């Protein structure tokens, strides 16, 4: 991939060397078009990042309205978050649900991914499709289906119900990420372990896990964040339980509360830290290039 980019750069730099005034005029137009394109693309990147660029400084504002630039620096919105037991309880629930559901989807999903990649049985594509389905279906369909199901079996508005629902939603990510990781690990190394008399469990502990742990950790973090940010299914199923996104959503529907900017900034910080961690782990595992193709 890198080679091709360098080749492309080399070609581009030789292209304007064509002679003749018509060619020169065309090159001028080309430069103009390239500037216009760069300007437009820059504006689109700004459009993408503007929400983040605005929310972070607002969270440190001393004003209780949405004044920008903020008239002064203060931590009052962080105080109002950390001083409110309802927000803290919501944060606790979010963390608990995210931890439990990401751990269970990691366990179920990684082992299933191993079966999908290494197995030779029929219907693997169908199984994988089924595991990934919650990612493709609009979450609101999963929410309606689980609502009706949970209402019938008494799991509506319970913690176990929420954990099960979030496990369903995070399984696709674990299966996809771990499939890539296992596929990129040389199967002959596993076979060597077997040929030396290792059981599957022994091979898993001594060969697979030491080699794949960065991917395992990355998949876990990914699943954790997906669960922590989940809004729609939680809104339908949570009943009296509050999570951070559910509380944020309900507050946003009613009014504009600057405390949200503080929580948003904390969430952005969490995302940036974890994306950095995941990128680092994936690079270690050498998976990043393969995932992007």
């Amino acid at each position, binding site marked *: 991939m890198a080679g*091709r980019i360098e080749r492309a750069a080399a070609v581009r730099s030789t292209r304007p060397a064509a002679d003749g005034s018509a060619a020169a005029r065309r090159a001028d137009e080309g430069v103009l078009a390239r500037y216009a394109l760069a300007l437009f693309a820059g504006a689109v990147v700004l459009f993408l990042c503007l929400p983040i660029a605005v929310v972070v400084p607002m969270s440190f504002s001393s004003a209780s309205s949405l004044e920008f630039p903020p008239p002064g620096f203060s931590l009052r919105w962080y105080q109002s978050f950390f001083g409110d037991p309802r927000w803290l309880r919501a944060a606790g629930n979010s963390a608990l649900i995210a931890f439990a559901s990401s751990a269970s989807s990691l366990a179920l999903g990684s082992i299933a991914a191993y079966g999908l990649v290494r197995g030779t049985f029929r219907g693997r594509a169908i199984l994988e499709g089924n595991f990934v389905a919650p990612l493709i*279906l*609009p979450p*609101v369909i999963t929410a309606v289906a689980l609502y009706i199901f949970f209402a019938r079996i008494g799991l509506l508005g319970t913690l176990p119900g929420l954990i099960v629902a979030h496990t369903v939603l995070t399984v696709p990510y674990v299966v996809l990420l771990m499939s890539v990781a296992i596929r990129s690990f040389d199967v002959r190394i596993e076979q060597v372990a077997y040929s030396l008399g290792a059981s599957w469990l022994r091979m898993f502990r001594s060969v697979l896990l030491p080699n794949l742990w960065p991917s395992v950790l990355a998949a876990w973090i990914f699943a954790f964040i997906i669960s922590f940010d989940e809004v729609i299914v939680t809104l339908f199923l949570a009943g009296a339980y509050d999570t951070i996104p559910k509380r944020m959503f309900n507050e946003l529907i009613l009014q*504009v509360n600057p405390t949200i900017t503080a929580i948003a900034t904390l969430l952005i910080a969490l995302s940036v830290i974890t994306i950095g961690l995941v990128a680092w782990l994936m690079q270690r595992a050498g998976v990043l290039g393969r995932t992007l193709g």
Partner: protein
Amino acid sequence: MAAATLAGRRLLPAGAAYALPLVAFMLLAFNLPIVLMLGWSIGAPPDVLAHYGQILERAVYLKVLGNTFRIAAIATLVCVLLGYPLAYWMRSLSPGRQLLAVALVVLPFWVSILVRTYAWIVILGNDGLVNRSLQGLGLSGAPVSFLYNQFGVVLGTANVLLPFLVLPLFAAMLKLDDRLLQAAASLGASRRTIFWRVFFPLTLPSLAAGAILVFILTLGFFITPAILGGGRVPMIANMLDLLINRLPRWELAAAISTVLLVLTLACYAAYRWVGTRSQP
């Protein structure tokens, strides 16, 4: 040696056993609920399609369906118009800058959709940055309503979904063989001709796949229309929220979910079909 391998294989036939726990879990916690929902959508025997009939009879439901499709189409168009030039520009950057550009496109991807949606209230709300500036500069007396209408919903949706279009499109553009462009140039084609006759047709399948993906995702959008539409731009998902959580009409909610399910699967089939064509 071979015996040990064979024993290992015989214990766990063809690897299917590894998938079993997840299969059991998904059957119980995902497939069964979906099937139950399909069951709820079916009426009592004489009039099996009664609930689907209601969707067609009541103008409200048809209006919301139409609304959803219109917003999905507009948001998809906006994403295509903004995303293609961005991906094309990213392709022309040096590898280091490409990485930075990808990071900037991915970053919002990782930030909670609630946060990104909320930010637009801060920026474009009646009391937001733009309206304050406009009034401060004396350009407008009353606040301009950017939000709580279709414009707000499309803007928020496009902002959230743009990375879904840009990233695969950019990856496809990188994979494109430069020798094809060089061949066209060596045959005397102008830059514009090369773009429209060679580059664009070759990246069109990826663009179409990305557009269908954005369309699918918009069909199920809930948060953005709820917050930036202010209840005035209801989409399918918001109606489902109403039918389940406010006025319990489970049968109708199940029927509408089924319609959405079928539409999504149809779009997804189109996505897969286009996707197989985009492979070089």
